[in-house]
């Protein structure tokens, strides 16, 4: 995770709340992902909801740590993994650093 990076959600993913699960549905699918949806765990969903194209990654981590009792280092690691996943499926894009 680059702390100063700003990420934006890609409009080709729709966020759905299905039975309490936060899932991402790609609406422009390739054949290989035609049947795939992506499920975020509770922390992942909370981080995803904070990605707004305005706040930096560090801002999001700080904001999250202010609201929940979590270790900043661990959360930064988790957020890095999540961003890697989201970037790999093109659910988010890096706007600026």
């Amino acid at each position, binding site marked *: 995770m680059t702390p100063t990076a700003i990420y934006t959600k890609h409009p080709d993913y*729709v966020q759905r*709340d299905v*039975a309490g699960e936060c899932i991402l549905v790609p*609406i422009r699918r390739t*054949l290989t992902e*035609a*049947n*795939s949806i*992506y499920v975020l765990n509770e922390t992942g969903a909370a981080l995803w909801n904070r990605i707004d194209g305005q706040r930096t990654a560090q801002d999001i981590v700080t904001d999250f740590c202010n609201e929940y009792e979590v270790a900043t280092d661990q959360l930064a690691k988790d957020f890095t993994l999540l961003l890697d996943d989201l970037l790999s499926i093109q659910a988010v894009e890096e706007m600026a650093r």
Partner: protein
Amino acid sequence: MIGQDKLSHLPDRFPFSCQWEITCRCNLHCVMCYTDCFNRPDAIRQELATAEILRIMDELAEAGTLELCLTGGEPLARPDFFQLYEHAIRCGFLVTVFSNGTLITETHANRFAALRPHRMEISLHGMTRETFERITQGQGSYDRCLQAIGLLLDRQIPLVLKSTAMTLNRQEILDVKRYVEALGMVRYKLGEEMRPELDGGAGPFQYALSEQGLADLNRQDSDLQRDACRRDSLEPPPCRSGMHSFHIDAYGRLQLCSGNRRQSYDLRKGSFRNGFYEALPTFACDWKVTHEPALIQPTLHHA
């Protein structure tokens, strides 16, 4: 983050999967069709309007429905089909479309490719023009159907081709299956079920294969035989209609399933949530196992 096909944990009652018969209109008049009896102007005028469908769709999305199957009649016979379809995709439903294929043009195929369905299922009734059009009663339908299959395959749209086994096409079912297998990434489904028409007519049954006829057909192919054996040997699973799945007809009536329309909840008048959680649980189904409470329930006293 986990990539998966379906959600693994759902509450006992949750509106996960919807089959929506968005119209009974159709450009064809297949001999075994159970909706064609309402493919007439006076009945079509009663069908849900565009705005009503969009509103109900939004209610389904809000309630958490993920799988949405748009069927008919022929869904593409609605002039507003792509408005509905594209809205459904943008809502984040996994959309399946059941179609006869014959109205799909290159422009339509491009629109499907731009916003892809979860799956398209097209009825392929036979491998000769004569048989196919004897079933559809639509001249030119055979060529148009094959053309649509080609257009969708060219764009790598996930495709299922399916047939209903009947007296009219039993000699060609295996040819259809071989044709589908040769296409590669396409699945084949053979249906055996005939249904009465929605107005109670028994017309489709005159084309039904006898049990012996079905057995003879299945014996000719190891896949079909295996599927038939599996169906015969297993206890049918308990019916989950109304628990995780439900049906909406062309007039906005919420029902347990396509095969059980005895009771309905009118989505023109009431909310989807109310219909699903309050009305559907009270609807009767011959296939559901009911757990009646014991008539005598002794009170326990701990001393």
